């Protein structure tokens, strides 16, 4: 419970900072930076913090469902050009994933944890 309070309070402070400064970033990102700073200063992660953040991040997928449902209402907007959109998104997303992944992998030092061979999901 304390942790949920801390997360919400840090986001609130983040939103406040965004309002006052006009920074073009969401308040939650500022909250993330604040929490990171707190962790660096304290030098450790409490068990409760570890458990609560783990729970939220393991179930991150469900948090996008309400917004995703909302998108359906706008689907008629893309009706006329839907095939262009599908082609562009497929090509662009796959190219971006491949190029970004390859650049990070080729330029990183070796020895970082990897998928066990053969590459399964």
């Amino acid at each position: 419970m304390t942790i949920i309070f801390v997360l919400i309070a840090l986001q609130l402070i983040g939103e406040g900072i965004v309002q006052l400064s006009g920074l073009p970033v969401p308040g939650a990102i500022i909250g993330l930076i604040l929490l990171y700073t707190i962790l660096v200063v304290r030098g450790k992660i409490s068990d409760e913090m570890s458990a609560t953040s783990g729970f939220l991040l393991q179930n991150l997928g469900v948090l996008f469902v309400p917004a995703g449902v909302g998108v359906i209402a706008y689907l008629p907007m893309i009706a006329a050009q839907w095939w262009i959109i599908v082609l562009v998104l497929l090509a662009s997303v796959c190219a971006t994933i491949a190029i970004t992944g390859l650049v990070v992998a080729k330029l990183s030092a070796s020895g970082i944890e990897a998928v066990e061979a053969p590459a399964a999901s």
Partner: protein
Amino acid sequence: MNADRLVNGLEFLAATPLLWLSLTLGAYILAVTLNARCNKMPLLNPTLLAIAVVVAVLAATGTSYKRYFDGAQFVHFLLGPAIVAMAVPLYRHTDIIRKTAGALFAALGIGSLTAILSSVLIARSLGGGRELWLSMAPKSATAAISMAISGRVGGIPALTAVLTIATGIIGACLATYVLRLVGVKEWHARGFAMGLSSHGIATARAFQENELAGTFAGLGMALNGIATAVLVPVIIKLIDRVG
């Protein structure tokens, strides 16, 4: 119980947030169970399946999105605290981030450019209208950022929202196959590519695969939000000058 009372009872339930909260969580649990049964196949993405179930229920019952969201917003609201919580795995993996910072920044520049240029150029070459490719340019950034950029450069923010969510779902469904095809096995590289290209929805997928992948996906998402905001206006100005 007579029919009137039943109808009144259903009306009452439909007006409480509880019903739509239960539907959202229930649909997601169902989706996760189905996904687990199918060997966690990335194509059967739990977020996508849950959206499909909710949409089907709303359509079948004639429920408006507004009414649904009034209840489901409590789930939506947790997105902010979840992003703040990403500081925890970021702190835990500070060493690897520091060790790979050079690679990450190179990939951020190249990846962000690829995401923007490929969508704009392919859309133009296929005959897409100006409003379409302007709305498409920031699609890899997280929704809050992509919609703001779209509005600033003359795109349609609502269309960008659709394109952004679609980008996230495509990335979450296909990333595993694309990365296998090009032979990228390191979790940090896989995660960074997923978050950079397809923001939060792919980041959720990355966290399900591996914590290190999820951490780097969150990092890729945050950094590309900033990079996209800087690059899109510049690229559009350049394209307009070239014609």
